[in-house]
């Protein structure tokens, strides 16, 4: 009830006669395109960084592992705006790496790259948690058996480990994508807001609210629909993936 009621209330506020025009306006389309593009890119970043992290968390045991896990999961509990500030002082022009990057001719501030960084920062834990769980559930017995049967480590990874954890990886990736799509606080703080470059759909909604509340509601509905599709997709995967 607590979740559904506000959504229904929002549905009642949508001006259906203008709905089509509102969500296909130039700035809305630019924001939606940018959102999909950056969320895809940050999901890829999450996979590249998150798979090794999840493997380490699930498969190794050393002192400080739980501390490491807590650190990796930190963005999950951090307010996104705090994440944005942290990124600002790392990759910003006056940040920790800012001057080095500037020397290399790389400027992250106010670029689409900054949006992807902010999204990947907050979305990474979702992928790691989901994949680590899948890896732990799958266990190492099949891998051990394959190895004793003479399979090389790469073969084990390709033929045994990956197929076993694929559902976990997929649902993790979808969750990371969804979180990236909804990212707001870190993006606003770190990347700025410019149409077609850094103004993603949530930022566009926030801005439209100032001028045209109807447009904000219509765009919100678009994000709700995307979210519902994603949740349904994950649930479908989840039940298909259980053994």
């Amino acid at each position, binding site marked *: *009830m607590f979740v559904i*009621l506000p959504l229904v209330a929002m549905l009642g506020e949508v001006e259906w006669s203008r709905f089509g025009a509102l969500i296909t306006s130039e700035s809305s389309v630019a924001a939606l395109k940018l959102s999909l593009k950056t969320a895809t890119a940050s999901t890829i970043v999450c996979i590249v960084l998150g798979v090794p992290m999840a493997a380490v968390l699930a498969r190794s045991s050393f002192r400080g592992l739980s501390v490491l896990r807590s650190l990796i999961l930190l963005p999950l509990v951090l307010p996104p705006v705090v994440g944005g500030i942290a990124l*600002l002082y790392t990759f*910003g*022009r*006056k940040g920790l790496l800012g001057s080095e990057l500037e020397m290399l001719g790389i400027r992250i501030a106010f670029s689409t790259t900054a949006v992807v960084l902010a999204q990947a920062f907050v979305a990474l834990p979702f992928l790691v948690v989901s994949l680590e769980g899948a890896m732990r559930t799958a266990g190492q017995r099949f891998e051990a058996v394959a190895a004793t049967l003479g399979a090389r480590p790469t073969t084990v990874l390709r033929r045994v480990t990956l197929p076993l954890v694929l559902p976990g990886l997929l649902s993790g990736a979808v969750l990371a994508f969804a979180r990236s799509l909804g990212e707001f606080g870190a993006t*606003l703080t770190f990347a*700025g807001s*410019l*149409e077609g470059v850094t103004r993603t759909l949530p930022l566009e909604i926030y801005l439209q609210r100032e001028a045209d509340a109807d447009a904000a509601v219509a765009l919100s509905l678009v994000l709700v629909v995307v979210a519902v599709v994603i949740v349904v997709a994950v649930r479908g995967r989840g039940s298909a993936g259980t053994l």
Partner: protein
Amino acid sequence: MKRSIGIAIALSLALVSGCGSSDDTSSSSSSSTTSAPAGKITVFAAASLKKTFTELADQLKADNPGAEVVFSLAGSSDLVAQLVQGAPADVFASADAANMTKATDAGLVAGSPVNFATNTLTIVVPPGNPKHVSSFADLANEGTQLVVCAPQVPCGSATRKVEGATGTKLAPVSEESSVTDVLNKVTSGQADAGVVYVTDAASAGDKVTAIAFPESAKAVNTYPIAVLKDAGNPTLAQKFVALVTGDKGKAVLANAGFAAP
């Protein structure tokens, strides 16, 4: 189920009213009932008024023992939206005429709003002015990373007005949704220049250098204040408005960089 709806509604009401509610039974808490209990008012004020209004509220409390002032500080358009949705408040102070007009059009205002201050735009740059910005036209220089407010918010529409008046075509790297975000992008060194209000530049102290430009006179923002029709404590609300528009208010506002209307 009914219970949970009730809780949800109560929660959202608490959210809407900022941090306090203006109930009429406020006198019950006053321990010192020496004079007539002054009661409590809720003031909805534009975020840029935070410092000055807090100071004036302290003055009001000193003048009226037992008085309590609760603030809800946010962007003016947010505040109007909350008021239209029925948020309980006694006084509304907007950072521009447009949002006060929205409130009067919705029939929320008692009497007519009074203009009590004006604010103009200024250029802010990091200390030392590394990009040598000296005029509004300089903001369009190539290689100067400029941040402004989006045209949808008051400071952005004011910037647009100056752009039009001067014939300068700005190419900002970011259009922020609040003036605070613009200021932060400059103080953190992300941007080379920003356009904010004189009062914002003043509040940032020596973290920025402000560069005044004559064209700012083309876009002066007026701050109106009004007592609301549904005020729970109109007497104290009226006193607060009188304080803000009076000599004391003028002095405090001028101190923060506001100009007289």
